[in-house]
């Protein structure tokens, strides 16, 4: 069997060899592969090998109704699904001219930030596991699980919520939810010093993460790096601030930037974002009860809902970077064309390939996890 992606090295120099990193490898994030050519343990060439998770989203979405696609989009990025729903819904709203009620906007922001915390906690865990620090992973994933409980309470699902629909959100918050969210945030803040001791300030972690996978500012801008990875290069670019959507202009938060551009800086940028997300959520807890009104603007019969002809581009700052949907409607019940702009396809393919050159075997997993790419979103 010759696998489709295999390009053989016909007569390699005798001191080089190939190694397959993934898809069935614990050092890889999800079902993804990197083929590396090595000399000793230094990487000469790395070729990202995706496509293991390809489902043809953009094609499938053309065959489903506008409202059916709400169920499909969160599956594009598994660890951080809410921005997908939100962005898709917002693009549809832009074409359809729907107005989202203010309360729904606040709830959306709350879910977005909760999802960001979940994704970052997950990444911390994965990042720690690449260097054998499983304790952090066990604690972090458990912490995330408590957030998933809250998601379940609001949306009825742990992972794929399908909660944000064009025009608003599906349901209002349950009774006493904000209190429970507040308690959980207290708990997270109480646990943060533990994580600091264990992970962010651990000498081993700092030793290993600093200086690997360095992206300079120019490289970051020319390679299309977005999100925390960009802000780890000390570039204060954040869509929530630069191209505000929903109710972000009303919220106080800092754009976290870290100097360095290496794996450690990217981790620290995410840590700062978790703290900022907690801050945002606290403001929401304080203000949401005072905001009344509907949670959804009325839709026509969703099964026979033709959007007007038009196109829209909506973008969101997700935990991975800039997530965007470009949707074209030809006036029918289904999208004419959907394009998903995921941040991970830049991070996991072009950036990763370049960062790995000159790195060592032991850095591969760490660089990949520090970029926090999301393979299902790369492959779509």
């Amino acid at each position, binding site marked *: 069997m010759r696998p489709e992606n295999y390009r053989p090295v016909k007569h390699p120099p005798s001191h080089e060899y190939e190694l397959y990193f993934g898809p069935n490898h614990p050092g890889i994030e999800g079902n993804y592969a990197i083929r590396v050519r090595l000399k000793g343990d230094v990487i000469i060439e790395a070729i990202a090998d995706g496509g293991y998770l390809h489902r043809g989203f953009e094609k499938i979405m053309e065959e489903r109704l506008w409202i059916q696609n709400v169920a499909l989009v969160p599956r594009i990025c598994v660890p951080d699904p809410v921005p997908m729903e939100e962005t898709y819904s917002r693009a549809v709203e832009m074409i359809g001219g729907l107005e989202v009620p203010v309360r729904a906007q606040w709830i959306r922001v709350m879910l977005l930030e909760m999802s960001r915390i979940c994704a970052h906690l997950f990444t911390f865990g994965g990042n720690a596991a690449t260097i054998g*620090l499983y*304790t952090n992973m066990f*604690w972090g994933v458990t912490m995330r699980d408590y957030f998933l409980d809250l998601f379940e309470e609001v949306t009825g699902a742990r992972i794929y919520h399908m909660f944000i629909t064009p025009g608003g959100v599906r349901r209002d918050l349950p009774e006493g939810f904000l209190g429970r969210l507040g308690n959980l945030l207290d708990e997270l803040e109480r646990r943060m010093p533990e994580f600091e001791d264990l992970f962010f300030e651990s000498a*081993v972690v700092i030793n290993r993460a600093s200086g690997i996978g360095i992206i300079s500012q120019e490289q970051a801008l020319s390679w299309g790096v977005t999100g925390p990875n960009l802000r780890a290069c000390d570039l204060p670019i954040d869509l929530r601030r630069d191209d505000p959507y929903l109710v972000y202009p009303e919220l106080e938060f800092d754009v976290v930037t870290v100097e360095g551009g290496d794996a450690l800086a990217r981790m620290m940028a995410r840590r700062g974002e978790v703290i900022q997300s907690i801050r945002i959520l606290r403001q929401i807890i304080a203000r949401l009860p005072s905001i009344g009104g509907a949670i959804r603007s009325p839709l026509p019969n969703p099964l026979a809902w033709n959007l007007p002809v038009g196109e829209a581009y909506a973008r969101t700052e997700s935990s991975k970077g800039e997530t965007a949907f470009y949707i074209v409607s030809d006036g029918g019940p289904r999208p004419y064309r959907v394009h998903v702009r995921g941040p991970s396809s830049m991070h996991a393919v072009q950036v990763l390939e370049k960062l790995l050159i000159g790195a060592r075997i032991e850095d591969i*997993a760490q660089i990949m996890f520090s970029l926090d790419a999301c393979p299902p979103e790369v492959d779509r």
Partner: protein
Amino acid sequence: MMSYVADFIFMPLIAFVTGLGLVLMARRVRAKIERRVGPPVLQPIYDIVKLYAKKTQISHGIMHDLSIMMLLGGFITAEIFLPVPGFDGLAGEGDLITLIYIMMVPMLGLALGVGSCANPNGSIGISRALTAMLAYDIPFIIAVTGACMAYGTTNLIEIVQIQQAGGPASWGAATMPLLAFGGLLAVHGMMGKEPFEIYIAPAEIATGPMVEMSGKYMGALFIMQCFQLYTIGVIYTTLFLGGGENWPFFLAKVFAVVFISVAVTNVYGRFKTDTMIRWMWKWPTGIALAGLALVMAN
């Protein structure tokens, strides 16, 4: 003659059973630190029996099989040459130096077997394991040398007797604390626990040496882990903690030595190979050399 037979049969068996307990302790301690329940008491046995009971057993050639035999054989030999309460039969026929080198035989066997699997991950794992051995063995050897100089003998039985004659005050840990501490750090590296777990490194080289081990081959590695923890614990106990007066005390000491390692391991990440060498050649080596200087000065 009968005492020899008893040695040959019971010493490896005791080592294995104790090793199972040590493995269980390591897993339980880890579970507790990770705030979970952890495996049931018989889990190490289940794992080993399960692996041996696999219905297909994949081999990568004769050397792969031979390596498993060398692995078990080397450790069984090491167990027989260890002085434990009640069984000192052969500890006098080979001394501490012999024991240290016998312990390298299973390592060499494993290395050869992994090499014959022809998996680059395995080869890198062995390369790292040998590098790690060079890193931790130097402070360990210094500690051993210092202890031997202090006791004036390499005969294991005599080392134990010297320490037991004077009670806990004459234990190696009390008379030469620096050497004992340096040795303890080296022993931590020897057990291959984080931050020195560079040769398993799942996220880097997919468990390295174990990558092509399956079925009873993997089962042998699990058994090896039991033997390894036990042997290291006993050697350290013999050198610095007064050896064994009787079984309860002796086992308590062995468990304590291993416990120190497994208790601190879970809050560290894994060093890079070169960081580990630098660390090992800096701190434990320095401490052990200072201890050696003290021993020589006396």
